[in-house]
Every structure is written in structure tokens, then in C-alpha cells.
């Protein structure tokens, strides 16, 4: 029997993987995919809570999150492409010219 806790643990693991990916990996595309993982963890959480609370709000929210993630993907990839055209690299360490 799957309970709420199972889903929360699963989403927590996925969120942690995503967060670690953003912080540790240096390839912009991989960082970007890790960001999507974080959002997917959020979606699992929302679905689990929505089912647990028997309320529709959570499921509607998932649609919002997915729509926004798609819009973000469009802008993010465009920015990565402009970066690549300028510097011929998508390594986060090599593009970092401003300190801080």
C-alpha cells in the first residue's frame, strides 16, 4: 500500500538529485535538466498532496508548473545558444568572467 509518505520521500529524493545537479555539474545543459528535475519533484509532491487532501487545486497547479517550465525551457535554451555563439563553450566555469 502506497501512502503519502512514500510519494514525499520519492519527491524529496528527486528534488535532492536535481538540486545537487545544479550545484555540482558545470555543463549548462545538464544544470538545466537538473532544474527540470526539481520542478518534477514539485509536481509529484503536488499530486500526492492533492490526492491526500482530496482537493483539485494541487492538480491544477501542476498544469501551471508544467506550462511555466516549458516557457522557461524556451528562454533558457535560447540564452544558452547565445552564450555558445559568443564563447564557443557551455561550461559554467569558463563563462564566469565577473567575480562574485
Amino acid at each position: 500500500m502506497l501512502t503519502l509518505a512514500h510519494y514525499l520521500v520519492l519527491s524529496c529524493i528527486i528534488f535532492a538529485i536535481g538540486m545537487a545537479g545544479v550545484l555540482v555539474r558545470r555543463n549548462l545543459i545538464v544544470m538545466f535538466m537538473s532544474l527540470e528535475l526539481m520542478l518534477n519533484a514539485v509536481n509529484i509532491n503536488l499530486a500526492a498532496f492533492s490526492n491526500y487532501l482530496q482537493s483539485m487545486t494541487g492538480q491544477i497547479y501542476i498544469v501551471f508548473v508544467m506550462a511555466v517550465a516549458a516557457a522557461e525551457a524556451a528562454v533558457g535554451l535560447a540564452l544558452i545558444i547565445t552564450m555558445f555563439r559568443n564563447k564557443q563553450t557551455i561550461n559554467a566555469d569558463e563563462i564566469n568572467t565577473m567575480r562574485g
Partner: protein
Amino acid sequence: MTPQAIMNLLSIYPEVIMTMFGLILVVLDVMTKNEKKSMVGYFGIAFLVITVLIAWPPVGKKFLGFGNMVMWDSYSFVFFFIFAIAYSLTTLGSVSYLKENGILKGEFYTIMFFSVVGMMFMVSAYDLTVFYAGMETMAISMYILAGFNKKCARSSEAGIKYFIIGAFSSGIFLYGLTFVYGATGSMNYLEIAAALKGGAASTTTFKFGLVLMLAGFAFKISAVPFHMWAPDVYQGAPTPSAGFMTVAPKAAAMGALIRFCWIALEPVGNMLALFFGILAVITMTYGNLVALAQNNVKRMLAYSAIAHAGFMLMGLVSMNPEGYQSVALYAIIYAFMNIGAFTLLGVVKNKGMIDDERLESFAGLSKTNPMYALGMLIFMFSLAGIPPLAGFIGKFQVIMATMKAELYWLAIIGGLNSALACYYYMRVTIYMYFKEPEYEVDATVSRSAFITSFIGAVMVILIGFFPTFFVNLVKTLLV
């Protein structure tokens, strides 16, 4: 139409009008010739003026629609007015800068216009769903504005940094939000407050979620320790978008945060005051201390933006009507002085081998370009909070609000910080007035940039000399 349907319409009509105008701007962008793209921006200003006039708030009335999801009241209006000021000033001041950098495109103005719609939804949200949609509309537009100069590696870098950190912080925010939803069973501010009164406030789920949510908010307003992105993004972004980004999104995030704390988190208000108090103190102090060490004026203004965010947080801490009135007033004043300063900053061109925005570029400008130096002097003095100018009024009101809430320690730290801030603003004026020029610098102010900085300077002086009028205006609107 049923009364409910009319109420629904009334609660979002300014946003609907703005969206329609935004779509018209997209069409206008296609219709204008390449060298006349600034017309798109001017039309945007005209549309904003029309919307401000149409949306003029019936003071004291509240339109709450769509199942308590969106609210249009005078509070939303005041913040909309701040965004309108920021948009108009940025547009006027940006034309010559964009033209010189070869990025005078209609998209700049269109995207900025749509970001204003997102900010309006953020501030008028009464539900986390609407809030999130508005926040992302604003944030995604901001990523584009930061990376707008495609040919410039620094601008792309700023865009990417802003994007990664912004998306990261939204992820954290959302993850916290799911737990708040799980603990309270709702996304609606009013229902969250009701659930918190009913005992949900003491659950671990709620506390964990709230901490993550507030961390996400802190990213957006660039509060220390979540500020790392701010200096790089503001330095790398094209100067006009940097001016816009330091003012409007920050005001929007503050406005939304105040509404969220004031309504949804009202039952746990005492717990929040200490959290925001500490956040405000470290934000101000860190921003000011690091700004002292900067030799690049643009980067210095970025750190000063962090310090100003700390000041605005002080108004939030007091959790009384004076608190949020003072934040709104502060944001209005900050819009005038900071966009004015950024406009003038975008004008300087150093013909030597160093960056245009280095402090050395400003050496001796009072002799070669006295009007420019005078304008910069006014903005710097105002940002520093020297008494007869508007910046002082903003800081004074915020500190008064904290005093009224009997948070004397916070008021004292705020006062000390504004003294500390004087040093680095004064450095710019010292370079302009007392140093000999080292490099050949061109600081010819174009007509549109002159108009922007003139409006900014006049408003800074007017608010500074006649504060009572403006303070009362904000007070009557935000009862």
C-alpha cells in the same frame, strides 16, 4: 451578468487592458521600421498612461474576484503606478543606449511591457496560483532583458546566471509551497490564514514549507545570503534593463511579499518579524560594506540595490500600516532616483582602454560636462539619503515605521547603515568634482536621456522638499 461575474471582471480589468495593449505593441513592433523601433516604447508609455487613468482606484473599494483569487484595490494600484513609472523612465532613457549598442529592437519594450503585467498579477494575487503565474511572467521577461545584448558575452553571461539562479529559486519556492499546501489544504491566502488559525501553524510540514518559500522570496528580492546573482546580473545586463531590474521586480516582490505576509501569514506574524528583521539587517549591512570596495560604478549600484532591498525589508518587519505605506513610498522614490542614475550611467563612454563604468571614467566630469555632473550629484545624494532630497524621506519613513513598531534596535542599525552608505556614493561625486580627468570621456547626454534624468531629478527634489504631500497621498491610497 450576475453580480459575481461583474466582480470577476472588475478584479482583473487593469491586467486585461494591459495584456491587450501588450498584444497591440507586438503588432506595432512588426509595423515600425527598423530605425524607428523606439516608437514601440513610446506607444507603451501612452498605453500605460491610459491604463493608469482607466484603473484609477476608487479609494477604499476592493474588487475580489474569481473565487477570492485576484484582488484589485488601491494597494494594487499604487504598485502598478510604481511599475508604470519604472517602465516609462526606462523606455525614455534607453533609446540612445540601445541605438548605440545596436540592440534597438521592439522586443525590448514589448517584453518589458509584459513583465509589468506579470508584476501586476503578482501584487494583486490573493492566491498562490495567480502569484506564481505572475512571478514567472515577470521572471522570464527579466531573463530575456538581462541577456538582451546578444553580441556581448557579458550580457549573455548575466542572462544565463539570472536564468539558472532564478529557476533554481523558483524550484525551492515551489517545493516549499507544496508543503504549505499540504499543511493548510489550500492555495488561497484567506483559506491559508483560516487553516493557520485552526492549528496548522504548529505542524512541522508547514514550518518546513514556509522556510523554503521565504528563501525563494529572498532570492527574488536579492536579500543576503541569497544575493549572489544580483551584482553579476546587474553589471552584465544592458544598463537600461539593469535600471529596470533593480527597481520594478524588487518592488513587485516586496508588494507581493507584504500581501502574502499580511493576509496569509497574519496568524504567525510574530514569528516572521524576527526572521525578516535579521534578514533586513544582514542584507543592508552586507550590501553597504561590499559596495564600499567597488571600483565599478555599475557594480557599486548593484550592491547598493541590495542594501536598498534591506531597507525596504525593514518596512515589512514593522507589520503595521505605516510599514507598508513606507515601503510603497520608498519604492516610488527609488524608481525615480535609481533609474535616473542608471540612465546617466549608460551615457558615459570612456575612450581609453578601461570599462565605461569604472570610477576613473567619472574623474573631472564636472569641468567637461557640468550638467551631467550635477544630475549625477543629485541622484547620488538622494541615494545616500542626504536630507533635502527624496532618498532621505524614504529612509525616514521606513525608520519611523520601525520606531512605531518599537523595534528600536532595527531602527538604530538602519540609521547607522544609511551613514555608512554615504561613503561610496560620495566617492562618485568626489571623483567628478575634485579629481583631474585621466581618460578622454564622452558623456554627451542625448535628448531622451536628458528628459529621463530631468524628470527623475525634478521628482527627487520635489518629493524631498514637499514630502507631506506625497506621504499623505500614499497614506490616503493605502489606508
